[in-house]
C-alpha cells in the first residue's frame, strides 16, 4: 500500500507531499482488584497523506490531508486523493518549504517485545505490598509497539519502531468504614519496575494520609509547592510560550533575548529540548515532518533563545532549522528540595484536575490531598482549591536542583509558586 500511495502522490505533480505509515500493535489488560476484567489486542495500520499545492506562482502554499485505510480499494483511494488535491487549492498559507535535508541517522527498527513488557507490568502490580488499610482498586495496562515510516516529496525518509505504554491506576485507603481513592495516570516507554513500584507505594501512602486529612483552612493566599506529576502542567506552559505557532499568532509574548519576567527574585529557568530521554514514550529522533530533533536550548537562564515548531510556523519566524519538541529538560534551581520547602507553604500532592492554561497561564485545581506546613507543623488537608496566574508568579518561582522525569519531561523535583489564591473550607486556626 505504501508504494501504491507513493506512486499516486508522485503522479499528482504537487508542490509537495508527505506520506506516513503508522502501525500499532497493542496489548491491553484491565484489572479489577487483581482479577482480569478484560484482555485486548489492537492491530491497526493507517496511511496519512498530506498534499501541498503552490498557489499564485508560489506566493501561497495550500495543503490538505487525509488518512487512508488499508481496506480502501483503488477507486476509493483515487477519490480520496482527488478530494485532498482539490481542498489543498482552497487553503492559502504564506509559502514555506518542506524538509529537504537528508536524514543522516540510521533508522530505528528494534522490535518491541509486547509480551515481556506486559509481563513486567503485571508482575509489578501483583508484587505491590498491600494491607487491609491500603490496596489497589483497579488498573489498566496498555503496551504498544508503534512503527512509523515517513517519506516526503523531497526524498526525505525515515522509519522507526518504539514502545509506548500507559498505566491507569486507582488505589484505595480505608479506616473505620471510611474509604478514599487516588488516581494515577502514567505514560512511559516500557516498564521500569522500580519506578512503577515507587509510584504505586507513594500513591498508597498518600491515600493513607488523605484518610486523616482535615479540611483545608481558609488561607486566602500563600505559597504552594508541587512535587508530583501535576507540576508538568507548570512547565508545559513555558514550552507552549516558545512554540512558533503561538508566537506567530501573537499569543506568546516571549521575545528572543528578552527575559521571561522583569526581575528574577527566585530561581532562573532554563528549558532545553532534547532528542531523547530514557524510557520516554516518544523516544524517536525525527519529528512528523521529517525534521531531525536536535538538542537545543529554548530558554537559557531565563532568556528565550530558540522558538520551535512545525516547518510552517518556524519558517514564518525566520528559523532555518527547527523541529517539534518531543522531550524536554527544565533546570536552573539553585537550592535543594528541602530549601524550596522552607517556611510556611501548602504542598498539594493530589488534585482533582490541576490545570495551567497554556495561553493565559491561569492556574486552577481542586485539592484532594495537600500537606499544610505552618510553623514547622505539617498537617494533611483536603478540599478547597488553588488558583492564580503563572506569568505573575514566574519572578518569584523557586524550584529544586534535583530533577525527576515524568515520561517526556525532566523537571525539578519540587516547585514552589508564591501568592496563589487558596480557597479553603475550615476556619483558620492560630
Amino acid at each position, binding site marked *: 500500500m505504501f508504494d501504491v500511495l507513493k506512486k499516486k502522490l508522485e503522479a499528482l505533480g504537487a508542490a509537495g507531499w508527505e506520506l506516513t505509515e503508522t502501525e500499532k500493535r497493542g496489548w491491553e489488560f484491565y484489572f479489577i482488584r487483581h482479577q*482480569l476484567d478484560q484482555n485486548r489486542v489492537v492491530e491497526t495500520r493507517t496511511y496519512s497523506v498530506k498534499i501541498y499545492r503552490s498557489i499564485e506562482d508560489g506566493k501561497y502554499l495550500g495543503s490538505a490531508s487525509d488518512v487512508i485505510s488499508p481496506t480502501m480499494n483503488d477507486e476509493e483511494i483515487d477519490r480520496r486523493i482527488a478530494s485532498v488535491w482539490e481542498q489543498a487549492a482552497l487553503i492559502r498559507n504564506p509559502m514555506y518549504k518542506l524538509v529537504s535535508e537528508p536524514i543522516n541517522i540510521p533508522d530505528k527498527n528494534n522490535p518491541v517485545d509486547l509480551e515481556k513488557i506486559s509481563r513486567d507490568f503485571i508482575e509489578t502490580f501483583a508484587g505491590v505490598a498491600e494491607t487491609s488499610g491500603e490496596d489497589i*482498586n483497579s488498573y489498566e495496562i496498555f503496551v504498544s509497539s508503534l512503527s512509523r515510516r515517513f517519506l516526503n516529496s523531497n526524498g526525505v525518509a525515515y522509519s522507526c519502531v518504539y514502545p509506548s505504554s500507559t498505566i491507569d491506576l*486507582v488505589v484505595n485507603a480505608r479506616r473505620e468504614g471510611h474509604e478514599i481513592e487516588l488516581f494515577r495516570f502514567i505514560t512511559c516507554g516500557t516498564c521500569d519496575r522500580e519506578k512503577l513500584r515507587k509510584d504505586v507505594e507513594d500513591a498508597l501512602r498518600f491515600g493513607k494520609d488523605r484518610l486523616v486529612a482535615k479540611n483545608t483552612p481558609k488561607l486566602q493566599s500563600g505559597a504552594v509547592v508541587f512535587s508530583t506529576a501535576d507540576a508538568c502542567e507548570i512547565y508545559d506552559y513555558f514550552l507552549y510560550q516558545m512554540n512558533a505557532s503561538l508566537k506567530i499568532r501573537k499569543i506568546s509574548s516571549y521575545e528572543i533575548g528578552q527575559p521571561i519576567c522583569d526581575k528574577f527574585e527566585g530561581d532562573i529557568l532554563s528549558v532545553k529540548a532534547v532528542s531523547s530521554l530514557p524510557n520516554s514514550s516518544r523516544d524517536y529522533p525525527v519529528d512528523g515532518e521529517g525534521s531531525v530533533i536536535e538538542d537545543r536550548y529554548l530558554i537559557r537562564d531565563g532568556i528565550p533563545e530558540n522558538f520551535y515548531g512545525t516547518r510552517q510556523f518556524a519558517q514564518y519566524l525566520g528559523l532555518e532549522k527547527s523541529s517539534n519538541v518531543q522531550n524536554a529538560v527544565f533546570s536552573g534551581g539553585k537550592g535543594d528540595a528541602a530549601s524550596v520547602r522552607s517556611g510556611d507553604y501548602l504542598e498539594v500532592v493530589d488534585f482533582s484536575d490541576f490545570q495551567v492554561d497554556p495561553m493565559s497561564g491561569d492556574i486552577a485545581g481542586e485539592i484532594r490531598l495537600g500537606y499544610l506546613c505552618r510553623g514547622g507543623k505539617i498537617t494533611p488537608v483536603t478540599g478547597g482549591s488553588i488558583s492564580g496566574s503563572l506569568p505573575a508568579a514566574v519572578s518569584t518561582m523557586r524550584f529544586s536542583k534535583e530533577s525527576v522525569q515524568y515520561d517526556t519531561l525532566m523537571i525539578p523535583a519540587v516547585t514552589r509558586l508564591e501568592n496563589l489564591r487558596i480557597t479553603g473550607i475550615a476556619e483558620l486556626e492560630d
Partner: protein
Amino acid sequence: MKAPFSAYLESIEPALRSLVEILGKQYEYVSILSTDSVGFQLTLSQHSKSVTNQNRTTERGSVVRVYRGGRYSEFAFNEFDREKVAEKAAEISAELEKQFSLLELCACETYDTPVLDDEPIELFCEKEAEILPETADTAKLIDELMSVSDLGVKTIPGALDCQAGGSSTHISKLFLSRNRTMRQSYVYTEGMYAAFAPSKNGEMKMVYEGVSGLCGPEILFTIKDKIREAPKIMEDVQGSGKIVPGEYDVITAPDVTGLIAHEAFGHGVEMDMFVKGRALGADYIGQRVGSELVTMHEGALCAESVTGYAFDDEGTLAGDVTEIDHGILRTGICDALAAKRLGVRPTGNGKRENYAHKAYTRMTNTIFDSGSDSLDDMIASIKFGYLLAGSESGMEDPKHWGIQCIIGRGYEIKDGKLTGNVVSPIVMTGYVPDLLGNISMTSGDRCVFGTGACGKGHKEWVKVADGGPYLKTKARLG
C-alpha cells in the same frame, strides 16, 4: 435527506457474519462492531488555515468481542480481506491465546462474569441530515469560517487572533452477533470560535463559544450569530477582577448547569464505577441527593444532539434514563458488561473512543429538567452573589462527590441587581449533594450543549452533550 449507511460496511457484512460463525465454534459469545465514518475538520485563523478529512470521530475498522469461561476478550483491527475470513479468525484466536498464556504464567485470576444476553434485534436506522460532510461545499465553508475570523478580529477589542473551526462526521456503524444485526448512520457537526486578546494589565484572555447538533455542516453558518456577542464578552473578561475566595449564592447559566450535570451525576452514576466500588452513588439509590427541584435525565434519546445515536457500541438500544427524580437518586447508567456484573439491564451507554478502544459506561446527553422561575426573579432574590457563565472544564470525584468546575466569568449580583462587575476565571468546588441540595430556583427554559468531549480519567475521549436551565444554588468559588 437520509444519511446513507456505509456501502463499505454493506459489502463486508456477509464476511463479518462468517467471522462471527467461525469464532462462535470456539467461544460462547461473539460480537463485532464495524465502523466506517467519514468527515472533515476545518480550522481558520488570521495566521493559518488548515483542512483535513480526519477528525476525532472519523474511522474505519472493527472490534471483535469474544467470551469463554467467564472471561471477555477483544481484538481490534482495520485490515480485513473478505476472502480470507478463516485466516482472520485464526489470527484472532492465536493472538488472544498468547495473552491467555501470559495470564496463566502470571497466575492471574479472572473476574468471573456471566455471558451477555443476545436477544434478537434487527435495526436499520438512517437519520436525517441536510448536507453530508463528504459532499459539502468545502470552499463555501472555508469562506464562511474565514469571515467569522475576520469579523472577530474586526469587532473584538484588542483581538490578536480569532480562530474559527468546524468538524462534521457522517457516522456508520454495524453491530453483529449471533442474533443481532444492527445498522445505523447519522451526521453530527460542531463548530466554534476562539478569540484572543490581552487585558489592560497584559494577561492573555480567551473567549470561546460553539454550536453543535445532530445535523450536517449547515449549522456552521450559525457561528456568525455567536461571534456577534463576542465583543461584549471579551470586554467583560478584559475588565474583570479576581474573586475573593468564599461561599456565595450563585446562578448558573445553562452551559455551567450542563457542566454540573455532567460532573456531578454524570460521572457519579456511571455503573462500571459501581462494579469497582468507585462511586458513592451505589449506596444512595433511592435516597435524596438534591432538592425537590432537581430532576435529571441521561440518554442518547434525551436530545437530538451530537450523541443522538440509535444503539451504543455494544449493540444495546439507546435509552432515556431518569437518574434523579425530584431530588431522589433513582438509577445510574450502564454498559452491557457492567450491567451483567451488577444484575441490571444495560441502558445503552456502552461507548468507545473508536473501534480500537475498550467500551466503558459513558454519558450521552446529561440534562437537568427545567422549572418555572424567571431569570429576573432569580437575580432579584440574591443579596450578594454571582451569575456564572462560560463553562471551560470540569472534573469529577465519584468516590467522594467532590466537584471541580472551571468557569470563565462571574457577573456580580448585589441587592438583586447585576452590578456590571465581572470576576474571571473562577474555580467552583464543592460537595455534590450540598450543591444540588441548595438548588432553590430553576428557570423555565433550557439549552443543550455538545461542543465538548469527555474523558474517562484522562483518556478515552467521546462526544457528549449536557445542559439544563438557569439554576440558583450556593457554591464555593475561588
